[in-house]
């Protein structure tokens, strides 16, 4: 069976690939949205932190024999700790300044971090094996599903929606929303807002590192893996609207699928389709699909 001249099997395979890429877009743009909401900082270090997540997992495995599942927890914690040090020593001095300063600092930090990893590990990349429990694939009847890819989609969705739930539906989330809107008043009520900001940054960074660990067995663990991906993720954020939680999740997944469909039907455009959509959205709805016009 074919749809517009494309065999159904091939279409499903591409859609799965799109869903998987979309999961990475979603989890990374979600982290950016959480950080931007609370810190008012556009975290250009995000790609480097995603890369660090993958590298820490690889180092944990190759040096210390720490398995994938433990790395999935440890690596985000370690990278978040580094992020917290960055926030406490550098970022916190920039909150009252224009966005541009935060952007320049985080962009510079990304270059420094990537440079350090390049010096240490080169650019040829390291291989990270798929964990044993997730090797092979499952025949779903209508398509063959590589187990690890299915796991990436499920794990990302669970983490994304858990984050959404915490922010939109819990008491802790009400502090975060209030802190995004009017942090001074929240502090006047007795909440330790500076601590909350630090932990929020740590959490956003942990999301990036988590995505990095998920990516390690799929892509090569490479010092530049983050900078390749983060450009697309920023386009996703612009399309979804900076700071919207649900918007970044839905837009990330949606654009992954759009990219996949483009790859099937008009492969020449697949590398630029997201940027074309970004241009159209900027023309029609400058605040993004889910952003609030101010």
């Amino acid at each position: 069976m074919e749809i517009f001249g494309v065999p159904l099997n091939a279409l499903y395979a591409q859609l799965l690939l799109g869903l998987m890429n979309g999961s990475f877009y979603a989890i990374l743009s979600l982290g950016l949205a959480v950080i931007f909401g609370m810190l008012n900082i556009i975290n250009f270090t995000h790609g480097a932190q995603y890369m660090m997540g993958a590298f820490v997992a690889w180092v944990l495995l190759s040096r210390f024999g720490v398995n994938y599942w433990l790395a999935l927890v440890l690596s985000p914690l370690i990278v978040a700790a580094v992020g917290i040090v960055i926030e406490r020593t550098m970022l916190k001095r920039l909150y009252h300044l224009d966005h541009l300063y935060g952007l320049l600092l985080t962009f510079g930090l990304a270059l420094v971090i990537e440079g350090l990893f390049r010096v240490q590990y080169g650019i040829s990349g390291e291989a990270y094996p798929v964990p044993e429990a997730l090797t092979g694939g499952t025949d779903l009847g209508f398509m063959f599903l590589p187990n690890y890819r299915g796991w990436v989609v499920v794990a990302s969705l669970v983490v994304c929606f858990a984050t959404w739930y915490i922010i939109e539906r819990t008491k802790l989330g009400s502090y975060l929303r209030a802190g995004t809107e009017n942090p001074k008043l929240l502090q006047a009520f007795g909440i330790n807002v500076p601590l909350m900001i630090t932990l929020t940054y740590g959490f956003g960074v942990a999301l990036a590192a988590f995505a990095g660990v998920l990516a390690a067995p799929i892509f090569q663990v490479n010092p530049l893996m983050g900078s390749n991906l983060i450009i697309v993720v920023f386009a996703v954020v612009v399309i979804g609207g900076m700071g919207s939680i649900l918007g970044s999740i839905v837009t990330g997944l949606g654009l992954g699928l759009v990219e996949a469909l483009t790859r099937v039907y008009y492969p020449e455009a697949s590398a630029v389709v997201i940027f074309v959509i970004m241009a159209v959205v900027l023309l029609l709805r400058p605040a993004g699909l889910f952003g609030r016009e101010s």
Partner: protein
Amino acid sequence: MTEGVSAFAPNPEYLRVADLHAFYGESHILHGIDLTVRRGEVVTLLGRNGSGRTTTLRAILGLTGRRGGSIMINGVETIRLPTHRIAHLGIGYCPEERGIYASLTCEENLLLPPAVSSGGMSVGEIYEMFPNLKERRNSQGTRLSGGEQQMLSIARILRTGARLLLLDEISEGLAPVIVQALGKVIRSLKEKGFTIVLVEQNFRFAAPLADRHYVLEHGQIVMTVDRSELASRMDKLHQMLGV
């Protein structure tokens, strides 16, 4: 702290501000404010726009820029404390712009401020005092009417156990019938033993509620009027406030 009255200090000071200076960036806004509020008192800060009343409240909470002088709350010097620590000395703050959060529902707004002390009003008691808020508890905070938002802004600090309430222009821009209702609320809070500092433009609203009035001009206190002197100094007051 409860409002239990000690025989040795029947009416102890809750708030003592001495020689308070405050800045926004390079602008020097408060030039040595001195005022004292005893437990259970209601005092007002009166004055024209820009005289420094709102800044005085914000400076007490550490929400301005650089501050100098002394602010004792419940016997604790707070001039060097960060804002969130000051709140935990039992202060509830209702800002001039009301500060209702758009991203929170009415009830989430109500439950937002953490308890700063024991003995706060229960949600049930609060809904009894402000029945409108109960009806609208699932509405987005900023969808409430101006009066409801003002009620919510006061209600949410009654839950926290705060005993010193700093209320900024709560009657501003509200219909007379709502202002009247607010007057009742303030009176009943006073009966419950709350200590209240009111920043007011509406002298007619404030006059019958307060034990003492401080009049500010150019960041200084230029006149202090006790309730007992109110009648005799009314002319002077009107002249200073330009009403």
